[in-house]
């Protein structure tokens, strides 16, 4: 395995890697570094790159450098130091560097280190800056010769953020380099190459006729700005100083002055015309366009752009310019900020000059057309130029658009359809109307608007933007047929695909079941379903509604996305659905396929057995799984077939032979990349209906949302490319609220997402939920476990009482370490990923918590395991992972706690049970994981209570990890069984185990066959 690292040095990317092969080298030569990428997917990207040897400062023990988190953190005693190591590296010029950085993270066979991923992030940053034109040309000296180069113009705040977030590894070239220097050099180099990659060359037309003897320096410089060669052709008597100074000055003027005050513009609408607004609504049929246009020309509405100053650090500080001039605003530099800002704003908003005629400009009066121009043209430019812009709340929203009215047809013919028989084939009467918001606009109103020819009109007291294009589209629309009959399925599609840029769908009105569906509030409108018989639990009210919703969707033959927050019991809700949907006639039963990540197989098995004992479960997984006819037989005999994403993708063909009632994907974010083999495979399995379960906020990741919908309702959202263009790009890159609204309307029928924090729905969630997470062992863990147990049983036969005691305790500790991770048990600094079921599950849970923007406490009783987890999780999650253990100083401890409590960023706090079990208040967390067990509920509860304390405003979810089929599960069962005795037996920790007989021990420690999944 290679872990690739990089830094930016000498105008180029320096790429090297750590390998996990045998260590070589002596003296100051790094023993496991390489610059040899042959045979990996990087080979093509680095072909021909020259090799150098770098002196890098790396964390080290006395005699060797410590491996990075990605390679596998090495346990060590004491504090590591820093030492200089000679490291072979490849030098990639900016152009190949950009190519490498843009694809470095997508490769399966080389793991990018955090330093490389940081530089890849800079490459994306640069691509964005270049596309947005945030670059300027410069004349620089390279080895004394003038050269033409492109420089980025980053936002200074962003630059500081990036510099502050640079992993120290990027600064490692001896004697250690400043982050801002590395950052600037990297941005400069990548920007220049990116511009050259996109810019046309040559930019100037070929000179016609005689080429003059002397070409001005500026022109030669300009020619070198595009194409591969930045060097400027020399001519005698060149003096580049003036050009250089002029360009430098230009560049500096592009960096916004970072004053404490920024100029802000606010568009205010004219006061409502007193008479017409209070006038009664005109009778139906009469033109209802009210507006100042009816008045005399001198009633031209008084729109106004006000000037204000806003605090850069405190946006709530807003001072009108009038106060600045009157001297009431006692702000230092206020006049200067105002004037300097207006001077700059003039460049994008020339109309402003009218306001600057006066001595104390405080605002610019505008007529309606001017207000419209401000809204459409000036406002976005001013915002992009860094000014504050406040627009009225209706701006960009209150648009003329389409409204779909749909009503189920009267069912009176042959009785085939009953009132409850609503389905996608039901016939629906529909009518298209023009509307603003929810309000329908009549034809004569539109005609009146068309006559007025103003782009901003007040329509029933509400201002509406109406440009020519829209008006045209609306008038065209009126000429077409607007009502008729279609099926409910067509209505659903129409809601998704109707409307266009000029005439978007702005409202949908429907009644009955169709209305329930389209509203996205079906769960609230339809009757909750009580806990079905056969479920060994009582559903909470919101779960009853979730169940009813699943049944409603299933009945329609529509796929659904159950996206409730983690911890709300999606598994239980789904099990209840399977139980209540199971026909009483065994002949009519068809199985449900549940696809889960491997780490969840054990958990599902146990939860199904516990909550829905009547469902027969078949696990299709592992090397001894059924194939072909056997699989078909086993699957059809079961109610629920559990499989993993990996297996499903390998066996898709065989699984497709089973007549599934439904296919369910748990942790369905696994499908987020729709083009992967497993996503395609899972989609290819035919089923009556499909359900996706996910706890991550789907609305944050639109391509992921598309993929989930493509699984649940294939084709419904249209092709991915069209979806990207219509929704993903406008919403994610441009923050288009209108597009976000349309997407919400299109997808809300299929998504049920309830938040823990929504107290109007989740009224009955306990403040503390405890869950057991059953994890599996990997094959490696199982064999280590087995060997340890056998070793002990061998020795125990010959041991005396005292030895026996020690042996049992030592074995317990070893087994728990094996359950944690083989590397924890072996203490060999070997790599971490993919070798432990618990670690996989921990990564998944932490990932979900980070995704939800929350914080988590992770307890372990082993400090050595914690110090392995910390760098590993930090690298995997790309989020801060704090680590508090017995060796943490009081001061550092307080700093960590304060940072965790106060930082807005989601983070993980890893704590050693002994060091942090008491005293701390960590209420910023609302998740707690106990990675390993102390088997002392009092100690665990005390630790849990770090989060669950006065001051906790959210519900706390506590997960205790248990490796299924191991001593962890057995001991847990014993504790549960003897709950009353628990305190007396268990209260003393693990001592009581030493009193068990050999037979009892054998039983407790024995590895059950189901422990291994894989």
């Amino acid at each position, binding site marked *: 395995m290679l872990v690739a690292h990089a830094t930016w040095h000498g105008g180029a990317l320096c790429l090297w890697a750590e390998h996990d092969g045998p260590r070589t080298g002596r003296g100051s030569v790094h023993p496991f570094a390489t610059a040899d990428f042959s045979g990996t997917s990087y080979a093509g990207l680095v072909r021909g790159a020259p090799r150098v040897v770098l002196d890098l400062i790396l964390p080290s023990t006395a005699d060797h450098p410590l491996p990075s988190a990605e390679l596998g953190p090495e346990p060590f005693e004491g504090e590591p130091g820093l030492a200089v190591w000679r490291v072979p590296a490849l030098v990639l010029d900016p152009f190949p560097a950009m190519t490498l950085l843009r694809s470095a993270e997508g490769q399966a066979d080389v793991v990018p280190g955090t330093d490389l991923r940081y530089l890849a992030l800079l490459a994306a940053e640069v691509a964005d800056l270049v596309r947005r034109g945030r670059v300027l040309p410069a004349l620089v000296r390279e080895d004394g010769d003038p050269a033409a180069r492109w420089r980025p113009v980053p936002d200074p705040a962003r630059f500081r953020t990036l510099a502050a977030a640079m992993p120290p590894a990027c600064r490692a070239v001896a004697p250690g380099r400043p982050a801002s220097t590395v950052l600037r050099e990297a941005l400069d180099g990548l920007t220049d190459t990116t511009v050259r990659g996109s810019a046309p060359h040559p930019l100037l037309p070929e000179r016609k006729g005689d080429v003059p003897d002397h070409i001005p320096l500026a022109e030669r410089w300009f020619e070198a700005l595009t194409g591969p060669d930045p060097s400027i052709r020399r001519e005698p008597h060149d003096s580049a100083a003036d050009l250089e100074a002029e360009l430098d*000055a230009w560049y*500096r003027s592009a960096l916004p*002055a970072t004053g404490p005050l920024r100029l802000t513009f606010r568009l205010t609408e004219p006061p409502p015309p007193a008479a017409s607004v209070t006038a009664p609504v005109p009778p139906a049929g009469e033109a209802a366009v009210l507006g100042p246009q009816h008045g005399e020309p001198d009633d031209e509405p008084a729109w106004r752009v006000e000037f204000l100053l806003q605090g850069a650090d405190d946006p709530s500080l807003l001072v009108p310019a009038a106060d600045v001039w009157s001297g009431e605003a006692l702000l230092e530099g206020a006049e200067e900020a105002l004037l300097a800002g207006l001077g700059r704003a003039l460049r994008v908003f020339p109309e402003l000059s009218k306001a600057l005629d006066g001595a104390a400009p405080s605002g610019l009066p505008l007529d309606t057309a001017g207000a419209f121009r401000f809204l459409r043209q000036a406002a976005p430019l001013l915002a992009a130029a860094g000014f504050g812009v406040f627009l009225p709340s209706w701006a960009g929203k209150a648009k003329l658009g389409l409204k779909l009215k749909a009503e189920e047809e009267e069912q009176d013919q042959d009785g085939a359809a009953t009132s409850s028989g609503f389905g996608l084939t039901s016939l629906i009467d529909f009518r298209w109307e023009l509307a603003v918001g929810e309000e329908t606009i009549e034809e004569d109103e539109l005609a009146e608007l068309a006559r007025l020819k103003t782009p901003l009109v007040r329509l029933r007291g509400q201002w509406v933007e109406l440009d020519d294009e829209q008006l045209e589209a609306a008038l065209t629309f009126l000429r077409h047929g607007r009502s008729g009959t279609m099926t409910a399925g067509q209505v659903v599609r129409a809601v998704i695909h109707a409307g266009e840029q000029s005439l978007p769908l702005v409202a949908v009105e429907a009644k009955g079941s169709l209305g329930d569906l389209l509203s996205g509030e079906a769960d609230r409108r339809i009757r909750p379903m009580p806990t079905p018989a056969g479920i060994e639990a009582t559903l909470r009210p919101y779960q009853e509604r979730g169940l009813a919703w699943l049944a409603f969707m299933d009945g329609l033959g529509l796929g659904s996305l159950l996206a409730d927050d983690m911890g709300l019991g999606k598994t239980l809700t789904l099990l209840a659905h399977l139980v209540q949907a199971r026909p009483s006639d065994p002949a009519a039963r068809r199985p449900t396929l549940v696809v889960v990540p491997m780490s969840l197989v054990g958990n599902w098995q146990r939860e199904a057995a516990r909550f829905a004992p009547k469902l027969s479960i078949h696990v299709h997984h592992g090397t001894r799984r059924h194939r072909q006819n056997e699989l078909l037989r086993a699957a059809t005999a079961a109610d629920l077939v559990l499989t993993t994403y990996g297996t499903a993708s390998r066996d898709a063909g065989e699984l497709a032979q089973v007549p599934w009632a439904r296919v369910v994907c748990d942790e369905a974010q696994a499908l987020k990349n729709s083009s992967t083999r497993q996503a395609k495979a899972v989609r290819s399995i035919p089923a009556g209906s499909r359900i996706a379960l996910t706890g991550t906020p789907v609305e944050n990741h639109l391509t992921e949302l598309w993929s989930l919908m493509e699984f649940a309702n294939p084709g419904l959202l249209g092709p991915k490319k069209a979806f990207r263009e219509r929704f993903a790009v406008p919403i994610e*890159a441009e923050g288009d609220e209108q597009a976000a609204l349309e997407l919400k309307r299109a997808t809300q029928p299929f998504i049920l997402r309830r938040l823990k924090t929504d107290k109007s729905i989740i009224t009955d969630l306990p403040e503390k939920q405890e869950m057991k997470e059953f994890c599996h062992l990997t094959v490696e863990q199982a064999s280590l476990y087995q060997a340890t147990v056998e070793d002990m049983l061998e020795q125990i036969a010959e041991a005396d009482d005292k030895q026996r005691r020690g042996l049992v305790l030592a074995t317990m500790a070893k087994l728990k370490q094996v359950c944690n991770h083989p590397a924890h048990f072996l203490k060999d600094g070997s790599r971490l990923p993919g070798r432990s079921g618990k670690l996989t599950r921990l990564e998944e849970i932490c990932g979900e918590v980070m995704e939800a923007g929350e914080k988590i406490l992770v307890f372990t009783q082993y400090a050595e395991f914690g110090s392995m987890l910390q760098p590993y999780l930090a690298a995997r999650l790309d989020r801060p992972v704090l680590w508090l253990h017995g060796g943490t100083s009081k001061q550092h401890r307080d700093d960590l706690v304060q940072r965790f409590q106060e930082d807005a960023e989601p983070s993980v706090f890893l704590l050693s049970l002994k060091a942090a079990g008491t005293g701390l208040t960590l209420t910023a967390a609302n998740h707690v994981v106990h990675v390993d067990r102390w088997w002392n509920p009092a100690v665990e509860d005390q630790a849990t209570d770090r989060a669950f304390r006065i001051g906790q405003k959210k519900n706390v979810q506590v997960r205790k990890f248990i490796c299924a089929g191991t001593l962890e599960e057995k001991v847990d069962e014993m504790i549960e069984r003897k709950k009353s005795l628990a305190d007396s037996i268990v209260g003393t920790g693990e001592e009581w185990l030493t009193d068990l007989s050999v037979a009892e021990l054998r039983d407790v420690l024995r590895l059950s066959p189901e422990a291994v999944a894989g």
Partner: protein
Amino acid sequence: MAFFESAKPIRVDGGILARRRRGSIGEEWWSRRFIDLLEAFADTGRLQRGRAYARQGQVLRLDIRPYEVTAIVQGSRPEPYEVTLGLQAIDGWDAIEEELSRRAVFRARLLAGEMPREIEQVFDACGVALFPEHADDLALMCSCPDWGTPCKHAAAALYLLAEAFDDDPFLILAWNGRARDDLLTALRRRPLTPEPGEDEDDDPLTAEDFWTPPSGLAALRDRPPVPTTPPGLLLQLLDPPDIKIRRRQLADVLLPLYVALAADGPEESTE
């Protein structure tokens, strides 16, 4: 002496006429200040006659150059007099420019045709007088036989100079040695703000958290959405540099390149 004082000047056509027919000359605070200072140290009688000269249009020409204003004034002799209004050369311009560039307001106001009041304090702080405050500060010369300071010809030129300041405050600075374009160029070439990040001290490298960033990379990935803007907005926002490529403004020649950069389209999200 009486001979000269009583002589009537020869009336001329096409001279420069003072706009203010009555009262004091100087509408803006800066020209007012100039006149006030002048009137405080110069001979009042001669000034009054000079003002009358200015109103009659006796000044035929007024040329403002660094540290020296020259004027041609028609007096009572057929040959017009040549007047020179000289100032001490300032060797502290560097410090003044440095000070002016510190606050954008100076540039903003100067560009808007205004002389910021504080500018005088800036000069003061640098030990330089923006306006002549004593007779010694002005080196007045006239080809007339009057040895008084100022003579009425010089006075007429001074009043018209004040009026010229009203129209263009940059002329004050031009007289003080910096023409408008030179000054603005000099101000532009001085950095308004330090280069981003330049001033920040780096934490020394430590072994702890060496491989992980101080805060998570994930937070960096969420770039806030940016509204779409026309390509080359940056070119439009900035003072164009004084660079021409084949007789066209640099910014104009560059625009197609920015259009091409924008057309490369948003990055496909990496999946």
